[in-house]
């Protein structure tokens, strides 16, 4: 029988993921435009959601950008609300999908959860942006696709490589329980 992760460990990993949301973009910003291109804040949220589940995933997605904006000024307050919604949805959906999708192949479960969460998060953030944060300006599907898929393509590639790799590495080191 697989061990169930204790509530304390979930709290500590959630706090760690929130801290990584603040520290990782600071390290990435040493490379020009890395924040927009490589989306470093998404990594701890996606991984955190997979490890600690949907509810703690939402906490990571909400607290991470909020604290980062307060302590480092990134993301700027203008894009903070949409980013909080987007990341909270990533945290929620990775946690949900990894529990719901149950095929024989673990890699399929992991990749499906990750890709579906990435798409759902972007759709949710796009809807939120169109409804609440465009201040009367028109917001087209083309603008949404460019903003969320084209600009951050390098970030999406990094996420698709790094998140499963980190997840397996952490489980192999017995630092997390699936």
């Amino acid at each position: 029988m697989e061990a169930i992760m204790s509530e304390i460990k979930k709290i500590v990993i959630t706090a760690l993921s929130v801290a990584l949301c603040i520290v990782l973009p600071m390290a990435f910003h040493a490379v020009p435009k890395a924040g927009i291109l490589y989306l470093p804040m998404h990594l701890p949220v996606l991984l955190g959601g997979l490890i600690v589940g949907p509810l703690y995933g939402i906490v990571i997605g909400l607290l991470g950008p909020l604290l980062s904006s307060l302590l480092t000024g990134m993301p700027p307050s203008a894009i903070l609300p949409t980013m909080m919604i987007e990341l909270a949805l990533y945290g929620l959906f990775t946690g949900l999908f990894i529990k719901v999708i149950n095929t024989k192949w673990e890699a399929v479960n992991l990749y499906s959860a990750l890709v579906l969460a990435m798409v759902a998060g972007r759709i949710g953030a796009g809807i939120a942006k169109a409804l609440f944060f465009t201040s009367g300006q028109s917001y087209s599907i083309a603008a949404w696709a460019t903003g969320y898929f084209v600009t951050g393509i390098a970030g999406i590639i990094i996420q698709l490589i790094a998140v499963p790799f980190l997840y397996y590495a952490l489980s192999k080191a017995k630092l997390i329980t699936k």
Partner: protein
Amino acid sequence: MFSAEAKLLSFILFVVSIVLSKTIVPFALLILILIILYWDLHLDKAKAFSSVKRLSTFFILIILINTFFFSKEKAWFEFYCFTPTLLGLKNGLIITTRTILILLYSEIVMQTTSTLRLALAFEHLLYPLKYLFLPIQKLSMIFSLSLSFINVLNEEIVRIKQAQTLRGITYEKKGIRGRVEALLSLTVPLFLSAFHKADELSFALESRGYDPKKKLGKLEHFFSRKDVLFIFFILLLNGVIIYGGYYV
């Protein structure tokens, strides 16, 4: 000495003041208050400024990027895509000043309050949210733990960067593939080392009998008269910044 609740609340209010400030007068006022607080509380200035020093390259980068790329109007000169403007320089300086001020104000809270006391203060301030069935104890623990993790992880990043540089990895590589490889060489060891630390910490908390569902403790009074006066003063400062013509 102020209570932890007052310190946390005043920090949040100071952040609001800092974010609303856009001209030299409110910034000067905030710097003056900062100097008085550091002097009155006998804080370790070297320790406080070390966090600012660590980010100095980032600050210079922010100022340069803003100066050269912020706007194309009223540029001093034009050279390829570089269009340095006074507006960009001002914007870069404002962002940098805000970040430094927030760092120095957060250092006051961190230097004078223990993590556990901070968690308790956060829990007390969030207490009304309990009626919305939110797990306040857990949220306050997550908040205070994440604050204390930031410094540890920053030091870890510096250590990993030095180690990877010794192995021949450069972070100034050109092309997406090179940059992705360089950034992954930083990310993977950072995550593994961070999760090792999280594992040790959760084990320590479990072995000491920490119960996330149990209340951390009780305090009779959250705010003394001194605390209330201080918070009232910062609220007044916010009012001055918002209505005094400094907020555009």
